[in-house]
Every structure is written in structure tokens, then in C-alpha cells.
């Protein structure tokens, strides 16, 4: 990619964070955009040629709709309750998730644990890699140029936009998902949760706490 000096002032942000993710709405008469038509064209041709089937596409969409952060929250809640499970989760994410009958393949899930000393946050500067099997589809802001540009340079300022202030005596550890590993943050268990059942604990685990832009909800 020959695009000259990297450090030029390039205002990637302008109208961008929203436009980055969301297709412009179709015309008022309901006409489809070029890309919407291209989607239809490719799908119909691929089905006609027997490369894929309509059922497979339907099943794929349903499967995607079924993957929500609730899966990740269950894993976190189990790790909070069972320290040995937590160690197994950190050592081998996919194997530990399989114990809960959660299949995260093909993701090479790598769980990073928040402690009193370290707060983790995940980003993919090059595209939008995300632990989809556990968290579902990523939010628009995660895919935005601004998040990807700023989180590796001023992570504390980015976290503050989420209302997350990390004290100076806690290290912020950013993970840039540049290759094959897919990361999930194991947030700290909130205080005042000693007698809570696993499903009550899971309800405290937000998607953002598993990305690292937030912490788990206090009870």
C-alpha cells in the first residue's frame, strides 16, 4: 500500500463514525441502493449455481441473531464462581467454553483478566476483529475509525467517553487484535455480589465490560 507518509493530518473522523457503519437510507420511493442490489444479485446467482442455498443463508442469519453477549456473560459468571474454571478459561478459552457447551470455533479465544492492577481493553485497528461467537456482532463504535485510531494512543480518554475512569495506579493494557487471536475481557466481579446465583451474576456482565470499555454493573 503506497499511500505516503502515515503521520499526515487526516481527519478520518468528520461525519464518519455513524456513516462508517450504516448504509445511507434508500430513496423515499423505496429504491434499493447499488449495494443492496449487488447483495441480491450475488445471492441469487450463487444459489442458482448451487454454491450456497437459500436455507443456508437463512440459517446463517438466524445463527447470528442467536449469538448475543449473553453467551459471554455466562462464561464470565462461571469464572467468577469457580476459580479453577477461570484458570482453565485463561489457559485455553475454547476448551473452557466447551465445558459450558458454547462452541467458539473457529475463534482462537483468548481471555484477558482485569485485576486490581490491570484493566484490559480490546481493539482491532486494522479492521474489526471481534469475539463474535461470544459477543455477537460488534457495535458500530467498535468498527469506527475513531475508536480504532484513538484506543491505541489515548485509551484512558476513550474509556472516559464511556464513563470509565481507570485510576493512575491501575495499568491500562490495550490489545490490538491484528492476527488470529480473538480477545474477551474477563471483568472484575463487582463487590456486594457474594450471595448471588450464577444467572444473577451473568446479568451484571455487560457487552462493554467484555470489550473493556466499561466494567461490570454493580448490583
Amino acid at each position: 500500500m503506497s499511500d505516503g507518509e502515515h503521520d499526515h493530518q487526516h481527519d478520518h473522523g468528520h461525519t464518519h463514525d455513524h456513516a462508517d457503519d450504516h448504509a445511507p437510507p434508500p430513496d423515499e420511493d423505496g429504491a434499493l441502493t447499488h449495494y443492496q442490489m449487488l447483495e441480491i444479485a450475488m445471492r441469487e446467482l450463487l444459489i442458482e449455481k448451487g454454491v450456497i442455498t437459500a436455507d443456508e443463508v437463512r440459517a446463517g442469519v438466524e445463527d447470528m441473531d442467536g449469538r448475543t453477549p449473553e453467551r459471554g456473560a455466562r462464561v464470565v459468571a462461571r469464572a467468577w464462581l469457580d476459580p479453577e474454571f477461570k484458570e482453565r478459561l485463561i489457559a485455553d478459552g475454547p476448551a473452557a467454553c466447551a465445558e459450558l457447551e458454547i462452541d467458539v470455533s473457529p475463534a482462537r479465544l483468548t481471555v484477558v483478566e482485569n485485576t486490581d492492577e490491570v484493566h484490559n481493553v480490546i481493539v482491532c485497528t486494522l479492521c474489526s476483529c471481534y469475539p463474535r461467537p461470544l459477543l455477537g456482532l460488534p457495535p458500530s463504535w467498535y468498527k469506527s475509525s475513531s475508536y480504532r485510531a484513538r484506543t491505541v494512543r489515548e485509551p484512558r480518554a476513550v474509556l472516559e467517553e464511556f464513563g470509565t475512569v481507570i485510576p493512575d495506579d491501575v495499568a491500562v493494557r490495550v490489545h490490538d487484535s491484528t492476527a488470529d487471536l480473538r480477545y474477551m475481557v474477563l471483568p472484575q466481579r463487582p463487590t456486594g455480589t457474594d450471595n448471588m446465583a450464577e444467572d444473577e451474576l451473568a446479568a451484571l456482565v455487560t457487552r462493554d465490560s467484555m470489550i473493556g470499555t466499561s466494567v461490570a454493573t454493580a448490583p
Partner: protein
Amino acid sequence: MTATFSTGERVQVRQARPPGHLRTPFYIRGKQGEIERVCDEFGNPEELAFGRRDGPAVRLYRVRFRLDDLWPEYAGADADTIDIELYEHWLQPAKEAA
């Protein structure tokens, strides 16, 4: 295959600007960090990007960098770091600091 680098070793990211599909971000090239863990071998994305699936696998590492080493104006804590996955052919042993 053994890995060239081991956990804790100081490495430097090569400063190179080839065309093609690269997974070494601009901001980390030329920087020095420490091997945080040796990962598995994986297909080389630079080759997979052109449909070549049968080439040799490459060793992946997680490398940890201090944010105040990367950004002169960094305003966070000294202990703030970033971990990035980098492929072996982008790494070389760090030169001793002057």
C-alpha cells in the same frame, strides 16, 4: 518448528513498507517491545490474501510495548501497555539501547 524468540525477549519491529496485505500496523513499525507469549504457527495472511493457502506456516507472537515508548505525548500511566500479535518475519532482536 521451534520459535526464534522466547518469552521476555526484547525485539524490534522491522521498519518496512512493502505493498500487499499486511497485518503489522504502521504505528508499531520500528518500535521495540518484549515477547509476552509465543503463540502457535498460522497461515501467513500476506500469502492467504492472494489465495495461496499451501505455503509454510509462520510463527505468531504477542509482543508488549509501553505506550509512552510509542507516543511522545502519552499522558496516561507509565505502566500502560499495548499487546499486539506480530508474525515472526516482522521481528528482529532489539539492538541494545544506547
